[in-house]
Protein backbone atom coordinates (compact mmCIF):
# COMPACT_ATOMS: atom_id res chain seq x y z
CA UNK A 1 0.00 0.00 0.00
CA UNK A 2 1.31 3.47 -0.81
CA UNK A 3 2.54 5.56 2.08
CA UNK A 4 2.58 9.34 2.31
CA UNK A 5 4.30 11.44 4.96
CA UNK A 6 1.83 14.00 6.33
CA UNK A 7 2.18 16.86 8.76
CA UNK A 8 -1.03 16.02 10.61
CA UNK A 9 -1.24 12.24 10.46
CA UNK A 10 2.42 11.20 10.32
CA UNK A 11 3.01 8.29 7.96
CA UNK A 12 -0.34 7.76 6.31
CA UNK A 13 -1.09 4.46 4.61
CA UNK A 14 -3.72 4.65 1.92
CA UNK A 15 -5.12 2.48 -0.82
CA UNK A 16 -4.12 3.74 -4.28
CA UNK A 17 -7.77 3.38 -5.34
CA UNK A 18 -8.74 5.95 -2.69
CA UNK A 19 -6.79 8.79 -4.30
CA UNK A 20 -8.97 11.60 -5.66
CA UNK A 21 -7.86 13.51 -8.73
CA UNK A 22 -8.52 17.27 -8.81
CA UNK A 23 -7.90 18.10 -12.49
CA UNK A 24 -7.75 21.87 -11.87
CA UNK A 25 -6.44 21.79 -8.30
CA UNK A 26 -8.12 24.03 -5.71
CA UNK A 27 -8.17 27.85 -5.75
CA UNK A 28 -4.99 28.92 -3.98
CA UNK A 29 -3.51 25.45 -4.53
CA UNK A 30 -3.74 25.07 -8.28
CA UNK A 31 -0.64 22.86 -8.43
CA UNK A 32 -2.10 20.21 -6.15
CA UNK A 33 -4.02 17.54 -8.00
CA UNK A 34 -4.07 14.41 -5.85
CA UNK A 35 -5.71 14.12 -2.44
CA UNK A 36 -7.14 11.50 -0.11
CA UNK A 37 -9.96 11.91 2.38
CA UNK A 38 -8.76 11.05 5.86
CA UNK A 39 -11.68 10.05 8.08
CA UNK A 40 -11.22 9.04 11.68
CA UNK A 41 -14.30 7.85 13.61
CA UNK A 42 -13.41 9.86 16.71
CA UNK A 43 -13.31 13.05 14.63
CA UNK A 44 -16.60 12.52 12.76
CA UNK A 45 -18.15 14.45 11.07
CA UNK A 46 -14.79 16.17 10.55
CA UNK A 47 -12.72 14.87 7.62
CA UNK A 48 -9.39 16.04 6.24
CA UNK A 49 -8.60 16.55 2.60
CA UNK A 50 -4.93 15.53 2.62
CA UNK A 51 -2.66 16.36 -0.32
CA UNK A 52 -0.63 13.41 -1.61
CA UNK A 53 1.87 15.84 -3.09
CA UNK A 54 2.49 18.15 -0.17
CA UNK A 55 2.71 16.60 3.34
CA UNK A 56 1.71 19.83 5.07
CA UNK A 57 -1.40 20.55 3.03
CA UNK A 58 -4.40 19.25 4.90
CA UNK A 59 -7.78 20.97 4.76
CA UNK A 60 -10.42 20.29 7.43
CA UNK A 61 -13.94 19.79 6.06
CA UNK A 62 -17.39 18.47 6.92
CA UNK A 63 -20.31 17.29 4.79
CA UNK A 64 -22.24 20.40 3.75
CA UNK A 65 -25.36 18.80 5.24
CA UNK A 66 -23.71 18.98 8.68
CA UNK A 67 -23.63 22.76 8.29
CA UNK A 68 -26.87 23.30 6.37
CA UNK A 69 -29.07 20.25 5.95
CA UNK A 70 -31.03 22.01 3.22
CA UNK A 71 -27.95 22.98 1.19
CA UNK A 72 -28.79 23.09 -2.51
CA UNK A 73 -25.82 22.14 -4.68
CA UNK A 74 -25.39 24.15 -7.85
CA UNK A 75 -22.65 23.28 -10.35
CA UNK A 76 -21.47 25.33 -13.32
CA UNK A 77 -21.53 23.50 -16.68
CA UNK A 78 -17.68 23.31 -16.52
CA UNK A 79 -17.75 21.62 -13.11
CA UNK A 80 -20.50 19.24 -14.20
CA UNK A 81 -18.33 18.19 -17.11
CA UNK A 82 -15.23 17.65 -14.96
CA UNK A 83 -17.25 15.55 -12.55
CA UNK A 84 -19.16 13.66 -15.23
CA UNK A 85 -22.47 14.78 -13.74
CA UNK A 86 -25.57 16.38 -15.17
CA UNK A 87 -27.79 18.65 -13.13
CA UNK A 88 -30.83 17.01 -14.73
CA UNK A 89 -29.99 13.70 -13.01
CA UNK A 90 -32.49 12.56 -10.38
CA UNK A 91 -31.70 12.53 -7.57
CA UNK A 92 -29.18 15.35 -7.75
CA UNK A 93 -26.54 15.05 -6.52
CA UNK A 94 -26.56 11.26 -6.98
CA UNK A 95 -25.56 9.12 -3.96
CA UNK A 96 -22.01 8.51 -5.22
CA UNK A 97 -21.26 12.22 -4.87
CA UNK A 98 -19.80 13.68 -1.69
CA UNK A 99 -20.16 17.33 -1.00
CA UNK A 100 -17.88 18.87 1.64
CA UNK A 101 -17.48 22.34 3.10
CA UNK A 102 -13.93 23.39 3.96
CA UNK A 103 -13.63 24.81 7.47
CA UNK A 104 -11.54 27.68 8.74
CA UNK A 105 -10.83 27.97 12.47
CA UNK A 106 -8.87 31.11 13.26
CA UNK A 107 -7.03 30.94 16.58
CA UNK A 108 -9.03 33.74 18.15
CA UNK A 109 -12.08 33.99 16.00
CA UNK A 110 -15.25 32.47 14.74
CA UNK A 111 -15.02 29.12 12.93
CA UNK A 112 -16.54 29.26 9.47
CA UNK A 113 -17.48 26.90 6.66
CA UNK A 114 -17.10 27.68 2.98
CA UNK A 115 -20.57 27.13 1.53
CA UNK A 116 -19.84 29.28 -1.52
CA UNK A 117 -17.36 26.70 -2.82
CA UNK A 118 -18.08 23.13 -1.70
CA UNK A 119 -15.60 20.40 -2.57
CA UNK A 120 -17.58 17.98 -4.73
CA UNK A 121 -16.20 14.48 -5.24
CA UNK A 122 -17.58 11.85 -7.59
CA UNK A 123 -16.65 8.63 -5.79
CA UNK A 124 -17.29 6.46 -8.82
CA UNK A 125 -14.78 8.33 -11.01
CA UNK A 126 -12.59 9.54 -8.08
CA UNK A 127 -12.63 13.05 -9.53
CA UNK A 128 -13.08 16.14 -7.39
CA UNK A 129 -13.53 19.88 -7.91
CA UNK A 130 -14.00 22.81 -5.62
CA UNK A 131 -17.19 24.10 -7.17
CA UNK A 132 -17.25 27.89 -6.77
CA UNK A 133 -20.85 28.96 -7.17
CA UNK A 134 -21.68 31.78 -9.52
CA UNK A 135 -24.57 33.01 -7.39
CA UNK A 136 -24.41 34.81 -4.06
CA UNK A 137 -26.73 32.45 -2.19
CA UNK A 138 -24.10 31.15 0.24
CA UNK A 139 -21.10 32.68 1.97
CA UNK A 140 -17.46 31.58 1.80
CA UNK A 141 -17.37 32.36 5.53
CA UNK A 142 -20.59 30.90 6.89
CA UNK A 143 -20.40 31.04 10.70
CA UNK A 144 -20.68 27.60 12.23
CA UNK A 145 -23.69 27.38 14.47
CA UNK A 146 -25.40 30.34 12.80
CA UNK A 147 -28.90 29.86 11.44
CA UNK A 148 -29.01 29.02 7.74
CA UNK A 149 -30.76 31.15 5.17
Amino acid at each position, binding site marked *: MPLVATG*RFGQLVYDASEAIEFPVG*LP*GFEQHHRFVLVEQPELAPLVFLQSLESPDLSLPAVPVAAVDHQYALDLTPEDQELLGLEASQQPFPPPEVRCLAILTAPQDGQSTANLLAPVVINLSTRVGVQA*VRSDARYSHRHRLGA*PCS
Partner: protein
Amino acid sequence: MLVIRRRPGESITLGEDIEIQILDSTASHVKLGIRAPRSVVVMRTEIRMVGEQNRASALGLSTSEVEKLLQTLNKPSSEPISPV
Protein backbone atom coordinates in the same frame (compact mmCIF):
# COMPACT_ATOMS: atom_id res chain seq x y z
CA MET B 1 -15.59 53.59 -7.06
CA LEU B 2 -15.64 54.97 -10.57
CA VAL B 3 -18.98 54.27 -12.24
CA ILE B 4 -19.30 54.32 -16.03
CA ARG B 5 -22.39 53.51 -18.09
CA ARG B 6 -21.69 51.38 -21.16
CA ARG B 7 -23.82 49.56 -23.72
CA PRO B 8 -23.16 46.20 -25.40
CA GLY B 9 -20.43 46.63 -28.00
CA GLU B 10 -18.78 49.46 -26.08
CA SER B 11 -15.64 49.03 -24.04
CA ILE B 12 -13.33 50.63 -21.50
CA THR B 13 -9.55 50.64 -21.31
CA LEU B 14 -7.47 50.17 -18.18
CA GLY B 15 -3.92 51.49 -18.37
CA GLU B 16 -2.05 50.95 -21.62
CA ASP B 17 -3.00 47.45 -22.59
CA ILE B 18 -6.14 46.16 -20.87
CA GLU B 19 -9.47 46.41 -22.64
CA ILE B 20 -12.81 45.28 -21.28
CA GLN B 21 -15.66 45.06 -23.74
CA ILE B 22 -19.35 44.65 -22.93
CA LEU B 23 -20.38 41.81 -25.25
CA ASP B 24 -23.94 41.25 -24.10
CA SER B 25 -26.27 42.26 -21.34
CA THR B 26 -29.53 40.84 -20.03
CA ALA B 27 -31.61 41.63 -16.97
CA SER B 28 -29.54 39.21 -14.87
CA HIS B 29 -26.18 38.86 -16.66
CA VAL B 30 -23.46 40.91 -18.29
CA LYS B 31 -21.08 39.16 -20.66
CA LEU B 32 -17.60 40.70 -20.72
CA GLY B 33 -14.70 40.23 -23.09
CA ILE B 34 -11.28 40.99 -21.62
CA ARG B 35 -8.15 41.65 -23.63
CA ALA B 36 -5.01 41.80 -21.47
CA PRO B 37 -1.34 40.75 -21.52
CA ARG B 38 -0.67 37.16 -20.43
CA SER B 39 1.05 38.45 -17.30
CA VAL B 40 -2.21 39.90 -16.00
CA VAL B 41 -4.15 37.43 -13.88
CA VAL B 42 -7.87 37.61 -14.64
CA MET B 43 -10.24 35.67 -12.43
CA ARG B 44 -13.72 35.81 -11.01
CA THR B 45 -13.50 37.68 -7.70
CA GLU B 46 -15.17 34.85 -5.78
CA ILE B 47 -12.43 32.45 -6.94
CA ARG B 48 -9.81 34.76 -5.47
CA MET B 49 -11.82 34.93 -2.22
CA VAL B 50 -12.02 31.13 -2.12
CA GLY B 51 -8.25 30.89 -2.74
CA GLU B 52 -7.59 33.20 0.21
CA GLN B 53 -10.01 31.20 2.36
CA ASN B 54 -8.35 27.89 1.36
CA ARG B 55 -4.96 29.26 2.33
CA ALA B 56 -6.37 30.31 5.72
CA SER B 57 -7.88 26.83 6.22
CA ALA B 58 -4.57 25.19 5.35
CA LEU B 59 -2.80 26.93 8.24
CA GLY B 60 -3.88 23.91 10.23
CA LEU B 61 -5.78 23.16 13.39
CA SER B 62 -4.42 22.61 16.86
CA THR B 63 -5.89 19.83 18.99
CA SER B 64 -7.93 22.38 20.95
CA GLU B 65 -9.27 23.90 17.74
CA VAL B 66 -10.34 20.44 16.56
CA GLU B 67 -12.15 19.94 19.89
CA LYS B 68 -13.84 23.32 19.57
CA LEU B 69 -14.95 22.53 16.01
CA LEU B 70 -16.36 19.15 17.03
CA GLN B 71 -18.26 20.77 19.89
CA THR B 72 -19.83 23.30 17.54
CA LEU B 73 -20.61 20.69 14.90
CA ASN B 74 -22.07 18.14 17.27
CA LYS B 75 -24.22 20.62 19.13
CA PRO B 76 -27.86 19.67 18.53
CA SER B 77 -29.17 21.97 15.86
CA SER B 78 -32.77 21.73 17.10
CA GLU B 79 -32.30 24.66 19.44
CA PRO B 80 -35.12 27.12 18.81
CA ILE B 81 -33.94 30.21 16.99
CA SER B 82 -35.14 33.26 18.85
CA PRO B 83 -37.28 35.54 16.72
CA VAL B 84 -35.60 38.76 15.66
